[in-house]
Structure formats: structure tokens, C-alpha cells
């Protein structure tokens, strides 16, 4: 039994998370918060810490809102916070399928932001359109790069492809129903149709449903 326990100990060591991963994830999740916690050792520091904590609570409440809301769009003061959190989220996605899903999600977020603007009759800034085009490009490229070397991955690729087609088509009809100037509509149609054609060309080995 001693040898068995020894081998289990080895298996435990072998299955431990990579140290770099542990540190990276920790610093992303709690790094800034931890720094504040360590500093609160003297009364003056505790006061400062309480103030910082309050700011932190407000900050994190705000960041959650910034991240989750489609109402936070290009030009909004919170928009850089939103894109920073997204970038952080993207860095945590390591497997190719997680990256492809993430890119598709970002494309959907950009489209929802445009829809929000349309609903509120807000004009589309050139940077909004550029951001949308970039998100679409990255999403299509990530899907195209996703290898189908495994049956499961092929299914995921097909699934993402179908969802992207569905959301782009839905977005197109929302643009069509909106009151935006025809010229602007045409611009968006071009963006959407070009990506739709590209996506349809992407080969998937799993059958399309």
C-alpha cells in the first residue's frame, strides 16, 4: 500500500496546474484587489484601504455593468473598460474552440451595440462600424482556423458556423427594419453579406443541420 500511496502522490504532482497559469489567472482575478488588502496594516492605511475598497466596489459594480450592457457603446466613457475586460477574457481562452466561441461572442456583442444605437436613434460613428468590421473579421478568421482534427471539434465548428450565420442574418433584418439612412444601411449590408459569404465558404466536416 505504501508504494501505491507513493504513486498516487506522483500522479498528484503530475496533475498539478502549471505555475505560470496559476500566477497569471490569480493576477487577473484578484491581483489588484490583493495589493490593496496587503497595504492595510496601519490605522492610516486601514482608512485608506476602506476608501479604496469603497472605490473598488463602485468600480467593480461599474465594470460589471460596463461589461454586461449593450447600452455601453463606442464613445461612452465606460466603453474602454468594457473592451479591456473583453481583452482580458480573451486572454484566458486557450483552446482553439474556446477562442472561436469567444470571437463569435464578441462579434455578437458589437452587433448588439449597433442594434441598441439604432433603437435609440443614435447615429453610427465611423469607429463603431470599424469596430464591428474588425470583430466580424476576427470571428470569421478564428472559425476558419479552427482545425477539425477531432470529431468533437468538427461539431463545434459546425455549431459556431451555424450560430454565426443565424446571428448575422438576424442582424441584417434588424438593420433592414431600422430607420437609418439608406446609405448607412448599404454600408452595413456590405459588411454583413461579405462575412456571410466568407462563413459559408468555410468547410465543416460535420453535417449542417
Amino acid at each position: 500500500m505504501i508504494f501505491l500511496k507513493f504513486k498516487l502522490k506522483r500522479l498528484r504532482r503530475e496533475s498539478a496546474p502549471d505555475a505560470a497559469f496559476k500566477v497569471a489567472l490569480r493576477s487577473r482575478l484578484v491581483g489588484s484587489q490583493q495589493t490593496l488588502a496587503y497595504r492595510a496594516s496601519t490605522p492610516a492605511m486601514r482608512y485608506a484601504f476602506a476608501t479604496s475598497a469603497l472605490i473598488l466596489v463602485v468600480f467593480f459594480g461599474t465594470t460589471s455593468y460596463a461589461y454586461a450592457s449593450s447600452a455601453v457603446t463606442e464613445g461612452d466613457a465606460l466603453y474602454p473598460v468594457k473592451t479591456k475586460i473583453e481583452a482580458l477574457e480573451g486572454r484566458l481562452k486557450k483552446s482553439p474552440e474556446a477562442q472561436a466561441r469567444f470571437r463569435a461572442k464578441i462579434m455578437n456583442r458589437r452587433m448588439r451595440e449597433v442594434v441598441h444605437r439604432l433603437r435609440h436613434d443614435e447615429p453610427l460613428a465611423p469607429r463603431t462600424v470599424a469596430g464591428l468590421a474588425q470583430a466580424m473579421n476576427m470571428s470569421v478568421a478564428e472559425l476558419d482556423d479552427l482545425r477539425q482534427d477531432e470529431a468533437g471539434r468538427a461539431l463545434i465548428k459546425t455549431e459556431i458556423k451555424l450560430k454565426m450565420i443565424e446571428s448575422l442574418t438576424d442582424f441584417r433584418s434588424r438593420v433592414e427594419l431600422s430607420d437609418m439612412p439608406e446609405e448607412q444601411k448599404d454600408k452595413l449590408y456590405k459588411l454583413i453579406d461579405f462575412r456571410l459569404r466568407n462563413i459559408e465558404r468555410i468547410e465543416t466536416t460535420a453535417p449542417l443541420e
Partner: protein
Amino acid sequence: MAGDFAKFYDQHLDAVYRFVYFRVSNNRALAEDITADVFTSALAAFESFDPSRGEKAWIMTIARNKVINHWRDKKEAIDIDEIAFSLEGENGLDNVESADDIRHLREAMAQLKPHERALIEQKYLLGYRYKEIAKNMEKQPGAVRVETYRAMKKLKELMKIHV
């Protein structure tokens, strides 16, 4: 809250990672993705977490759900406890290179019944105490200790067959 989450992360990261790793065919990249997801969800819900539920039970429930969702996304209906310790990756190849004796151990582990495997995994790989395992399994600690001993004896026998 900030310090609490850091402490919480330090205490549970290894166990969560191992739990996930053994259920995704030992695919490190995937295990890291899912583990990151688990802790991101935990951070989002940390403020509303009820400590009376037990930290370990809570984070492991999140991990369990994330692994189930991963396999569901792949359209594979599996029992995540049944596939634990399976060495074969999704491409039919092993995802890890291990020394022969550790490979035998994994193979033998895969042959145990899910319940026996869970006992050994929780005790020797995830670092649970008998009291915690008993609570998870709604049993008496004494009974869990005996069952773990039996599972270890069986594992030892299986290891002999492999060698």
C-alpha cells in the same frame, strides 16, 4: 472581500484544476480554460455566496457544471465520473506522457467503479479529509475510511494485473 477571494483562490485552485484535468482526457490547455471559467464565475458570484454551504462544495459544484457543459457542447452524452482518468484524448491519442508506473496507475484507476475512484481521487489526489468526503457522500466518516481502504486494496490488485 478582495483578500477573501485571493485566499479562496489559493485554497481551491489545485483541487479544481485536478478535478477538471482528470475529466477532459488530461488535456492541459482545456483544463486551464475550464478552470479559468470556473473561477471567473466564482468571482462574479462570490459576494452572494453563502458560507454555510461550504466553500469546497460550492466551487466543486461550479467545476462539475462547467465540465458537464463542456461535454454537452461537444454533443457527447457522458457521465463525467465514468470518464474520469480516461487516458485517451479526443483524437484517440494520449494527451500526456507519463512514466510507465504512473500510466499503469491511471489505467488501473480507470477500471475502478466510479464510486471507488471518487473515494481515492478525493482522498489522495484532491486532498479531502475523510470528514469532508463523508459530508459529500452523506455517509459516516468511519464508513468512508473503510470503503477507501477497500478501494485502495482493489486498486493495488488491479496494478498487479497490469504489471
